[in-house]
């Protein structure tokens, strides 16, 4: 018995901003032209075909969407202009929501109303929290740690970190099971199918393999070196921009969430102090990266910027505004403007918190984890297969 075809899936994916996948006539140019597509994990046509046929299980088990960094070569050369790069992008959105057990991700991606409302509600909660619980607003000097004591923020941060981590990691666990092939989860799968030797169950991989290959995860997470090989040489810039945003974001995330007591201080560090330098780096990196990306999307300067989902805009704008308001806080502190500092601080958090709460476990940010995770799992699996042989 063969797999049953279900073309309705494409319509579902349209809600995630999928376009043009139907136009594909399966010539295979995209896979052949892609510089990251390999013998073991060829893409994008394979997953596009599964999509055309509505093979949802196959898609959910596919590591390929996470291996694509969207250089746009496939879309530029596609004979049907079916935009395979954008289809991969749409698939990533769909998969993010498929791995999210809460259903929030799906709502966030498929409903603009939910998207905006959720941001506003969280922002309002943050605002109300400050309204009711803020500390004294000293006006003779800038005393942020009196207005919002960093010890309190730290506790809240850690609570948020715990919740977000739980959500993100539980979603990542679902991805892990799907990609490594949990046969119990998908009973209709034919495990011996010769076409899918790599997608099939090897959950029984020895734990020590996972440990010995852990380096792969760390390296890929920090360097994203795979992105550097994506597309033609001119695409390098894309990798640099991406690396800037990602490292800036991660740096500030660690500074704010874990190191708030060192980061949020009422005295300025000396200019050469590592925390201050890190702060400046993160600010510059995110601001440059997001501005570049926003301009790119406005001008549609690259294939990768041709199509923008509303969540792409939200992510970039929130990130940009967070950074910008962060700079403003820095400036008002420098200029010793206490009230302005407190207000902007609240606004800053009203932007930053919704962004973190929504993006980290449910939306765009997940790929920061999923990408290196999938690469790492691929490596583990490859090793496991090698040792099996």
């Amino acid at each position, binding site marked *: *018995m*063969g*797999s*049953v*075809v279900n*073309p309705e899936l*494409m319509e579902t994916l349209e809600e995630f901003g999928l376009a043009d996948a*139907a*136009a*594909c*006539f*399966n010539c295979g140019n995209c896979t052949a032209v892609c510089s990251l597509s390999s013998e073991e994990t060829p893409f994008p046509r*394979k997953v596009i*075909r*599964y999509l*055309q*046929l509505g093979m949802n299980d196959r898609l959910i088990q596919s590591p390929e969407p996470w291996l694509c960094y969207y250089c746009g070569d496939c879309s530029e050369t596609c004979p*049907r202009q079916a935009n395979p790069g954008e289809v991969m992008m749409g698939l990533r959105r769909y998969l993010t929501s498929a791995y999210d057990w809460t259903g929030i991700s799906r709502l966030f991606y498929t409903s603009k109303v939910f998207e905006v409302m959720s941001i506003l509600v969280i922002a309002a909660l943050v605002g109300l929290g400050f309204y009711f619980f803020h500390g004294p607003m000293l006006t003779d000097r800038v005393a942020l740690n009196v207005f919002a004591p960093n010890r309190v923020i730290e506790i809240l941060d850690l609570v948020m970190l715990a919740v977000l981590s739980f959500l993100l990691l539980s979603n990542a666990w679902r991805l892990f099971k799907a990609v490594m092939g949990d046969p119990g989860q998908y009973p209709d799968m034919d495990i011996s*199918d010769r*076409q899918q030797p790599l997608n099939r169950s090897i959950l029984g991989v020895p734990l020590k393999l996972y440990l010995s290959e852990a380096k792969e995860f760390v390296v890929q997470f920090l360097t994203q070196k795979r992105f550097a090989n994506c597309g033609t040489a001119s695409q390098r810039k894309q990798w640099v921009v991406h690396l800037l945003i990602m490292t800036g974001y991660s740096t500030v995330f660690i500074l704010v969430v874990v190191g708030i007591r060192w980061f949020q201080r009422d005295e300025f560090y000396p200019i050469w102090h590592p925390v201050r330098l890190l702060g400046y780096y993160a600010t510059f990196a995110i601001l440059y990266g997001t501005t570049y990306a926003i301009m790119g999307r406005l001008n549609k300067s690259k294939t990768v910027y041709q199509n923008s989902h509303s969540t792409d805009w939200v992510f970039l704008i929130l990130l940009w505004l967070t950074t910008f308001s962060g700079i403003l806080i820095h400036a008002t502190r420098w200029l010793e403007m206490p009230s302005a500092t407190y207000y902007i601080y609240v606004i800053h958090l009203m932007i930053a918190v919704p962004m973190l709460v929504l993006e980290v476990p449910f939306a765009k940010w997940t790929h920061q984890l999923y990408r290196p995770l999938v690469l790492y799992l691929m490596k583990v699996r490859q090793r496991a297969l090698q040792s099996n042989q």
Partner: protein
Amino acid sequence: MSSNQDKKPTGGQEKVGIYICHCGGNISDHVDVKKLAENVKDLEGVEVVHTNTFMCSDPGQELIQKDIKDGKINRVVVASCAPALHELTFRGAIKRAGMNPYLYEHANIREQVSWVHHGDQATEKATGLVAAAVAKARRLKPLEPIRVEARRHATVVGAGVAGLRAAYDLARRGLEVALVEKSPFLGGRTARLGRLVPSGEQAGEVISRIAGLVMTSDKISIYPCTEVTAFEGFVGNFKLTLRRKPPEEAECRAQLKKAREAGVGKGEFLPGAGVLTPNLPDREEEISLETGAVVMATGFKPYTPREGEYGYLQTDRVITLPEFVELLAKYPDRRGGFLQVKGKQIRSVAFIHCVGSRQIPGIHEPGQDGNLNEYCSRTCCAATLQAAVQVRKAFPRTRVFDFYRDIRTYGRGQEEFYEEASRQRVTFFRFEPEEPPVVQVSAGGKYPLQVSVKDTLTFGEQLDVPVDLVVLATGMMPTPIKEMVELMKLPVGADGFLQEVHPKLRPVEVANTGILLAGTCQAPMDVGEACNAAQAASAKATSLLARGYVELDPFVAKVDPEKCSGTGLCKEACPIEGAISLKERQLDGKTVVQAEITPALCTGCGICVAVCPSRALDINGWTLEQYEAMVDAIVAA
């Protein structure tokens, strides 16, 4: 590239020039042309030997003409490809040089030598053939073509789109035209189509337009419900017997009934049938017709799948594309929801391509006639996609699946149409001929049918597609016209279609001069291509008949009155009515009965020569003496 090996004249009457063609490398790669020239230069009567890369090219022809004008030669032998290709070319060149074009002999050293033999053997055989040609050439006599009056009248058989087009064009050029159609409708298969790819024109409108022009032309006589029952004569002077009778076939009568019920009058279009002809016969009658040229436009019939081929005839949910197109025509402007067929909601429909086309020996089962349709039917891909897109647009909830081997949307605008089908969410599957899709009746499932396929677009995976309806894209087969083929001795190709002389040199002519091909009787074509072919055929017919006379080759039998004793054996043996007659004539004061030839009717077959006990008959240009000389020359070489 020409080597001149002149010799001093021997003083003989017949001075032969030999011209050997390399044919690019076609000949010279296998035949040692230099050696061949050497071998034949000393044959009796040979004055000059030339070689050239392409003897048929202008410089090649000029070589011959120069030798003629210089008085060096008075017989020409060209050793090159098959005479069918270029005998006429060289005769023309000789004629332009002022020599009788029949003092020419052609040696075929390509098809008969270089394409089948290699090395020394090839050169040896070529030497023999050229020697024979020289021997014959020395015995050639000047001949004059037979000039006969031609009727400025043409007959078109078949009133489909090609026939209508041809008839109208011939009439516009001033010829009288008889348009013979076996049904009571004009428009043939085209009339039964829906929208045409890719312009979206309604086939009915196209047919109504051209049929209207034909019906209003005062030069065209339409013979509906008519068949050709006898045929004789030659180009410019064919005689046809037609039988016209009231329609008897059930399908025909049903259509006429439908026309009456729908109030479709004479000259009006009935969907699914065509334009009702103005003059329906009410009794059977025989008509004889004299005509100058015949345009065959007998068209095609769709392939009928075998019982069980993809489930055909085993369930009424498997139908052919022509049947489906007729069904679709019933919902002209319906929009939204599901397609309904025979009262059933069609949630999904599968199209399967190449049914009865592209059949491969050893894989496909031969049809009832024992033949395989190895050819591509050319039009079904675009027609299928047209139907698929129409379904998707009109009934967006009906899913469409398409199973193909190769999508052949070759024509202008067709590839764009294929893209449109993809964008309209037609899901495509590609199969290999060895592993075609399997249509199964699924008992108790949510869908009555299931199409299973090993899909090469999904890396050879086995996929199951549940459907409500399967449509088979059936190919074209030539309309069965066995009687006419025998009657008119028409050449038929291995694919069953009428065979042209050469696809590029004489694409709309058959070997029988004066009979031309238009449209799908020759090969699968779409409407535009069929019209092109019809117009090309009309152009040829006009060229043939415009001058009011035609010239026939003089290779006909002649009687030696010295030898003929009037046995009449030749007349009995002659396969052509009227070509030989026995006539009384005065010979040395006595009345004798002798054979007489009507040159225009004689085909030069030579049967009479064989049966004559007194060797009184011979074929001009192919005499027994010439044959004997050729044989001697081959033996000597």
